[in-house]
């Protein structure tokens, strides 16, 4: 068995576009996932039932159903309903559906990481900050979150890598990501191995870079004293 790499060269534009699209999907989902996750995480620890319950329902919904189903439902049901029936407009591209689905899904997982991180910080830290006259928001922002963030980095790193790989599921709604490039190249050239191996190498490259970035951040957020 030999692998014919020439088809990969021939279809390289597909792969380049796929590479960029996968990065876009991951970055957008990380950014919005962090924002959604922070809001939901804070809602969960707020101690107010009218904030806790909606957050809990959201997290259970997005963690309890398959991502593939979420992508299909958002692209073929939710977004067309909103855009065509309510806004009376043409729905945006499949890529937009991919952004939405991955961000909403990541938000649910990241919310749990935020909640765990915040709850792991000793309650005395919040009390000390409040006793100095800081508001709840200041105490969270200046005292609790910076300490929690350091503890959240390893699980966040795992989540980001999972997200990068799960982004391949948007292939089913024909978003031009790495997996889609491999799939279409293989289908139209009948060359089986080359395209899929290429896609695998691309994902591996991205996950390795991402895990190194997370490791670097973990080091940077460790106080000077501990490095010695």
């Amino acid at each position, binding site marked *: 068995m030999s692998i014919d790499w020439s088809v990969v060269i021939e279809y390289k534009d597909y792969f380049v576009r796929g590479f960029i699209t996968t990065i876009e999907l991951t970055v957008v989902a990380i950014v919005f996932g962090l924002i959604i996750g922070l809001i939901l995480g804070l809602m969960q620890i707020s101690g107010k039932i009218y904030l806790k319950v909606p957050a809990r329902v959201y997290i259970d919904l997005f963690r309890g159903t398959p991502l593939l189903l979420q992508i299909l439902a958002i692209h073929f049901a939710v977004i067309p309903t909103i855009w065509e029936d309510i806004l009376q407009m043409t729905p945006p591209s499949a890529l937009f559906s991919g952004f939405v689905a991955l961000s909403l899904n990541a938000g649910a997982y990241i919310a749990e990481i935020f909640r765990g991180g915040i709850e792991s910080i000793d309650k005395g*830290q919040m*009390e000390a900050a409040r*006793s*100095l*006259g800081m508001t709840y928001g200041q105490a969270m922002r*200046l005292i609790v979150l910076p300490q929690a963030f350091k503890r959240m980095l390893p699980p966040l790193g795992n989540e980001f890598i999972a997200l990068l790989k799960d982004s391949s599921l948007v292939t089913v709604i024909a978003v031009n990501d790495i997996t889609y490039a491999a799939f279409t190249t293989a289908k139209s050239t009948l060359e089986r191995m080359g395209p899929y191996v290429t896609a695998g190498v691309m994902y591996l490259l991205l996950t390795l870079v991402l895990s190194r970035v997370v490791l670097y951040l973990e080091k940077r957020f460790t106080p000077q004293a501990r490095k010695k």
Partner: protein
Amino acid sequence: MIRVENLQKKYGDHLVLKGITTEIQEREVVCVIGPSGSGKSTFLRCLNLLETVTSGKVIVNGHDLTDPKTNLNQVRSEVGMVFQQFELFPHKKVLDNITLAPIHVRKMPKETAEKKALELLRKVGLQDKAHAYPEQLSGGQKQRVAIARALAMEPKVMLFDEPTSALDPEMVGEVLAVMRELANEGMTMVVVTHEMGFAREVGDRVLFMDDGYIIEEGTPQALFSSPQHERTKAFLSKVL
């Protein structure tokens, strides 16, 4: 300075404070003693509303803490608190631990806050530790920084919640020395403590608490040498 009227505190169904009434004057040093579980820490924590009050009145510095219209952040910024477990901010250097609240709560310029923080560090004998992280300090040093941090807000009252209970014995003295100096400067202080020597020497008044009540109060001389109540006698015979 502080007036407490019939203060009650419930955790669920459990009544921890069963009706505390007392008054603390400006420049007075009041030590609160009593067995563990007697409610003395809860009482102290009610004075800056780290605990919500179930019923009764707490008036600090003219602010009624139980009035929902009172700005609690404002009140808390005028009341310093020192914790048993220090609660320094581990991700901040000593200097930043002290300047954080003046900068963010009082909106003090950074330079002014740092100058003041260095003065306070000198006062507690730790000016050379300004750029250390808390984990590089001993327990006694941490507690002295915690006192400096509270003083940076220029509080009108200082609350101490068993400030020496988590310390190794050889470090208790250095923390008590700083507190003694504060008392001599005329700071109003409420100190929950097991250090009977400190209460006797520095306290203007001692409150003995047990089972959610103030059982007995008086000058240290009176309370320690001729306690009136059976429970006070029993407690003092165990600790003195």
